[in-house]
């Protein structure tokens, strides 16, 4: 009989000795080179962490390969970061260079520290989810290939956190990233009355719609959608498989920028939509990669040292952001969902 409720793996069994010995005693850290962190403890102990990007969706061969590397260089310990990187923890400084050489030889990109592009936090997409408006891993691969130089170097004005969510459920917290790619639908759900009748609880379905677009249709034992109220969020589809919302011709990606979660200097902020729609053009999503590159490069040229993407935009003003990037402004970028009012300008202090 399997044991129930034994809880998470005990982290205490997972800590490398150098960490167990200096737990809570770290003094400071440095970044000797991109992808390498050096932490120094009160005891004088030095810990080196080599950070490498991973595609997040990995095979067991990959896991075993990083285990082999950790056995050789790190006494059998490693960790993962909240952005799906792998970190090799080395207590012997003479092993750092050989480890980096080995990682580079095996094709693991070393980087993601300091003023760099981090690994893109993303969701499942067409690989394994039921509501996506775009793929996840493929778009991320295309964007990371295109911006590869910024992962392994630290030449951005500040760190760049990119998130991708393949639908508005936003499993990947794209809503507070410096730059977010979000899968969006653009057409109302097509009702499959047969499926609705078969097993959908109508009141829950009606209640699931944030805009009140869904009305019960008792005569049909189904529902009606008021098209002019629907904002294609897909919430009803999550409640009821009969509300089919995927649309090959009209699904695509939106781009949002300027969010952050850290409190440093400026408050945490939401990302703001600057491009409402770009088409899905697999396998390389050229429109998306070009749009992302344009924004990142405009920030590199105009941002000040230490300034996050959103801090740069707030300083120069959003109106200037659209001028500098050449992104067209349209009514789609003016909020007409709830809480919209607080985004309308109520001062005469703008720029051109």
């Amino acid at each position, binding site marked *: 009989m399997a044991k129930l409720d034994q*809880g998470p793996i005990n982290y205490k069994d997972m800590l490398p000795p150098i960490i167990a010995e200096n737990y809570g005693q770290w003094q400071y850290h440095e970044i000797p080179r991109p992808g390498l962190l050096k932490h120094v403890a009160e005891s004088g102990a030095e810990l080196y962490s080599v950070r490498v990007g991973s595609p997040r969706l990995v095979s*067991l061969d990959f896991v075993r390969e990083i285990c082999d590397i950790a056995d050789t260089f790190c006494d059998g310990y490693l960790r993962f970061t909240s952005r799906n990187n792998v970190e090799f923890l080395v207590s012997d400084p003479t092993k750092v260079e050989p480890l980096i050489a080995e990682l580079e030889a095996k094709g693991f990109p070393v980087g993601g520290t300091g003023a760099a592009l981090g690994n893109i936090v993303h969701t499942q997409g067409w690989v394994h989810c039921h509501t996506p408006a775009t793929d996840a891993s493929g778009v991320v691969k295309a964007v990371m290939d295109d911006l590869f130089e910024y992962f392994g170097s630290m030449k951005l004005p500040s760190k760049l956190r990119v998130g991708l969510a393949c639908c508005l459920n936003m499993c990947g917290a794209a809503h507070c990233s410096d730059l977010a790619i979000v899968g969006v639908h653009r057409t109302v759900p097509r009702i499959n009355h047969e499926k609705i009748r078969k097993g959908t609880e109508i009141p829950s379905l009606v209640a699931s719609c944030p805009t009140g677009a869904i009305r019960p249709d008792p005569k049909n034992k189904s529902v009606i959608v008021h098209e002019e109220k629907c904002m294609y969020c897909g919430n009803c589809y999550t409640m009821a498989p009969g509300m089919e919302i995927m649309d090959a011709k009209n699904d695509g990606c939106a781009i949002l920028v300027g969010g952050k979660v850290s409190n440093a200097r400026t408050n945490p902020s939401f990302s703001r939509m600057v491009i409402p729609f770009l088409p899905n053009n697999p396998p390389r999503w050229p429109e998306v990669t070009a749009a992302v590159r344009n924004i990142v490069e405009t920030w590199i040229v105009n941002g000040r040292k230490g300034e996050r993407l959103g801090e740069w935009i707030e300083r120069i003003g959003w109106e200037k952001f659209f001028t500098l990037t050449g992104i067209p402004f349209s009514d789609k970028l003016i909020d007409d969902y709830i809480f919209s009012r607080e985004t309308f300008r109520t001062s005469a202090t703008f720029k051109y």
Partner: protein
Amino acid sequence: MTEKKTPQMDELENGKWPSFVTEIKKAAVKNPAAEELLQLLEKSYEDKIGHWKHGGIVGVRGYGGGVIGRYTDVPEEFPHLAEFHTMRLSAPSAWFYNTKTLRRICDIWEKHGSGLTNFHGSTGDIIMLGMNTEHIQPAFDDFSEAGIDLGGSGSCLRSPSCCVGPARCQNACYDTLEACYNITNEYQDELHRPMWPYKFKFKFSGCANDCTASIARSDCSVIGTWRDSIIIDQEAVKQYAAEGMNIQERVCDKCPTRALKFNHDTKELAVIAEDCSRCMHCINVMPKAVKPGKEKGATILLGGKSTIVQSAFMSWVIVPFMKMENEDDYAEFKDMMARIWEWWDENGKTRERIGETVYRLGMGRFLREVGLPPVPQMVFRPRANPYVFWQKDEIIE
């Protein structure tokens, strides 16, 4: 099996970033479901839509969640994907591993699943990607035998996660790993048996840098802070200055509260302690010279979530400062959570995150009913309208 062409997938093996397609192909050598997954994805790239249906109920004995049912909508074409469920495994605090444990996970998953996995999912679980129904219970039994438990799915507590904290970060204001471990263990029932209006997430970050994005991604964010003044090491300040750092520009001018003064003659940094809002900026730029204060604890925030349904919320401050050092402090935290969950259970609608419930019924009512004292730290600024809900006991009969 006949060799099927996957030109778009093959294209995604080019380029310098590690390719998930290469990973799927590695798994495909040993596993026919992984091979079909690659072909299914190629089909999605041609059709520009996903080919996965809603999950039915699948699970293990004794639990209500932890496994997410997944079925393809084209099972005739891809029989190995007719059932392709996800199993969530509860990861260790801050995602530290020894290779023995990782290899054990690999062996079990090779036996029962597709050989594909996510390290980690967005919430922080290890995601075992793709297994058929009959393997669910045996896989769980094997994982359980190895000391590895399921994570959460459905309307339950989702697996909490935390930043690297005191294990390797000088900024940590409380022990995020221990708090996460202790609190997760306390709530195993809430985690494994969904019985709430909707999901609930905790994330623990050791300081306001918030490396787990808790403020954006968790219903309850526990963010480390301090109550006294930052600690400045003047010798280290002088060293930064000697090394050529422009302290005035990079540190003082960017302090949001203008709390820092740099004396260009003595090369000393001074802080007006009561002006500092503990944003972490100066500490990030000069980690050797500036440290959090001594009186450490955590700020508790509630209500964070992403867009669906009532738009995205960032968590709101509900307790500006709470000690987070020992079992008694955790007990105080858990006591507060009990009141909050009871209130949400009573008042929340189906599929309504707690932030939405609080927003719909009013923060004032929430605070009164869960017994949290209102303080100015809860608002950026007070309300601008006079539409107040006065309570019976405040009115003269």
